[in-house]
């Protein structure tokens, strides 16, 4: 035996799944929603997506470079952040806004807290909320949409959720079916529940996510909305419920942002609790809050609860408290 053998501690085999592969899969899963957004809102949406992704990756590279850290752009996490940020913006915003949002998301929220895995909030959502607070007008101005199709209601520029908020009921101007398909106003990536669900199925098939968080989120949200309908004297209104489910950022948030590993509890029970908190908070924000939207704030607020949730949902170790003879 002349050759040198590798020596390491067991186990000696590894699963093929790696961090960069997970991130690549998330990007692929976001493509249906992205493509639909571009189709819905036109060339401008593509531009926003490109600017956001490129600037996110650039800020990641710049930070690593100037802080003399190992270059982490190859893990694709900055691509995911940039893409999610873009999908959370209206297509009409000026181009410097995705750049500013990316800078905030990557440098302040992600890198200053220690980089990938250490951020306490979802970077893309934090970037979005930062822009929402700073430039509320621009972030909720949906009146563009020359689109490739021109079906979008570009006169009022109101999203179905905003209409819902203003009227307190659905006036039927936007059928639920259109909301499911995405023929409505909204941010680039949030309008089509169908496109988002196609992406979600991709993530589920490749086991990037499981159903715990999305289902408890959507489930508890639905329960709260139904209770609200019953107790506010409105009576059960299927249209109202589905408008809430398919309108706004709920689908995108539940499948792609609430499931962000870093800002989700690591424990199984914790994930269920987290999903319920999200659902209830989103409903509270939407039904009682000042804004028509609630998903972003609910998620970043619950992100901050994660350490607490983890602490109280630690699993019982095998053989400690289980069945004994």
């Amino acid at each position, binding site marked *: *035996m002349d*050759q*040198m*053998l*590798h*020596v*390491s*501690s*067991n*186990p*000696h*085999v*590894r*699963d093929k*799944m*790696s*961090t960069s*592969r*997970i991130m690549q899969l998330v990007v692929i899963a976001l493509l249906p929603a992205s493509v639909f957004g571009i189709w819905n809102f036109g060339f401008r949406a593509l531009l926003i997506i490109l600017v956001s992704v490129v600037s996110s990756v650039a800020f990641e590279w710049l930070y690593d470079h100037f802080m003399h850290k190992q270059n*982490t752009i190859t*893990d694709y*996490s900055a691509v995911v952040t940039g893409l999610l940020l873009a999908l959370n913006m209206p297509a009409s915003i000026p181009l410097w806004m995705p750049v500013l949002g990316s800078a905030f998301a990557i440098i302040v929220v992600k890198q200053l807290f220690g*980089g*990938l*895995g*250490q951020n306490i909030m979802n970077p893309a959502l934090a970037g979005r909320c930062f822009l929402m607070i700073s430039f509320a007008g621009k972030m909720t101005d949906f009146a563009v949409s020359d689109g490739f199709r021109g079906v979008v209601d570009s006169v009022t520029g109101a999203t179905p959720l905003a209409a819902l908020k203003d009227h307190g009921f659905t006036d039927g101007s936007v059928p639920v079916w259109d909301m499911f398909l995405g023929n409505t106003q909204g941010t680039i990536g949030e309008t089509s529940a169908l496109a988002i669900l196609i992406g979600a199925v991709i993530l589920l098939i490749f086991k990037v996510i499981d159903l715990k968080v999305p289902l408890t989120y959507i489930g508890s949200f639905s329960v709260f909305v139904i209770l609200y309908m019953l107790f506010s004297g409105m009576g059960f209104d299927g249209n109202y419920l589905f408008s809430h489910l398919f309108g706004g950022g709920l689908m995108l948030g539940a499948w792609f942002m609430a499931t962000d*590993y*870093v*800002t*989700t*509890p*690591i*424990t*199984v029970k914790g*994930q269920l609790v987290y999903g319920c908190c999200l659902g209830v908070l989103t409903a509270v924000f939407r039904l009682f809050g000042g804004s028509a939207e609630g998903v972003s704030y609910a998620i970043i607020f619950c992100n901050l609860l994660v350490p607490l949730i983890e602490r109280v949902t*630690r*699993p*019982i*170790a*095998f*053989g*400690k408290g*289980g*069945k*004994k*003879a």
Partner: protein
Amino acid sequence: MGLLTFKGGVHPYDGKELSKNYPIEKYLPKGEMVYPLSQHIGAPAVPVVAKGDRVLAGQKIADAGGFVSAPVHSSVSGTVKGMEQRLTATGSMVNSIIIENDQQYEETEFTPARLEELSKEEILKRIQDGGVVGMGGAGFPTHVKLSPKDPDKIEFVLVNGAECEPYLTSDYRRMLEEPEKIVEGLRVMLTLFDNAKGYICIEDNKPDCIEKMKALVADIPRIEVKELMTKYPQGGERTLIYATTGREINSSMLPADVGCVVDNVDTVVAIYKAVLLGRPVMSRIVTVTGDAINQPKNFTVLTGTNMEELIQAAGGLKDHAAKVISGGPMMGFAMYDLHVPCIKTSSAFLCLEKDPVSEAQQTACINCGRCVSVCPGHVLPARLATFAEHGDMAAFEKYDGMECCECGCCSYVCPAKRPLTQSIKSMRKMVLANRKKK
């Protein structure tokens, strides 16, 4: 009936097709034989032969060094060449008896016995004298395991034929080729425990074994075959007990605490040989396999055989072998030198062309929770590894770090390629050392 299993676990590539269809071949050693005095958990054995002595196959060459210990027997006839420190598969140097094999295989006289004529004490004595230890890998002296405080409280004797480690096929071949010896061994064990039922537990990726074994035990009232879901680490002691009986034990309990005794199939065969034939442990089945070996095979190997010889007998290593592992890929030991003896616990030598561990690049934990979902110990490996890296012993113990069974599932599944099991393992050793100090 649904398949029996546990919560957690992984499904690595199992590689069993490489060697599973090769019947067991007897390999006769050529070179010197090396018998480490520690082939078991507990006190090392004490030599009872001196340099220059002629010994016969089956002759005791070292006596047990205490109750929790086991004697060592020569597997060949020949002359004692001396005693010296030799490298073993786990990487440690162990005092060993070296014997020059005279190729005569002259045996000492063995005294067979009939089960009906033996008392429980005599059975245990014969197991102890036969040097029987847990041959699945741990090497715990079997007579100790079979002498619980209250033998009447033992309700289940579990024969572990799960063989959940990828690549390994030694138990598979054993169950296929000599199932009646396993049943006989189990009957011996059941004689010790009047209130116990015997379960032969096999993963469902071995349907031929299950069928054969079921036919064999059909008329034996106290013995049943249990089908397990194929999943690693199904054959772990704790997971096996849980899957078959629904009972849980933690790190500070023994299987006997929940009325169970667990032994690997090869151990059960050793019990059969020691008790009924009077033959001590002189050989075992070893799988030599992997993509870096030219001709994967299953051998009956005499203990003390140099492993390098076995590799040659399996066609030798391919030119670009990266790693040779004693045992399976999940729990085995990587070796840097192939000149080590096969001992009672060597179940396989696995030769891999690629080493995914050295190719993997470690990145930051993204908190994905995969380690938590696969952990059969229901702990939080990602957190424990972080505590271990920070040297935070208090937090490590508080988060049930000692409940880790070191199965390796978390390291296997980690997309950031963190050495989770390894960190946790080191910390566990430190905690145990610390406890001893007190």
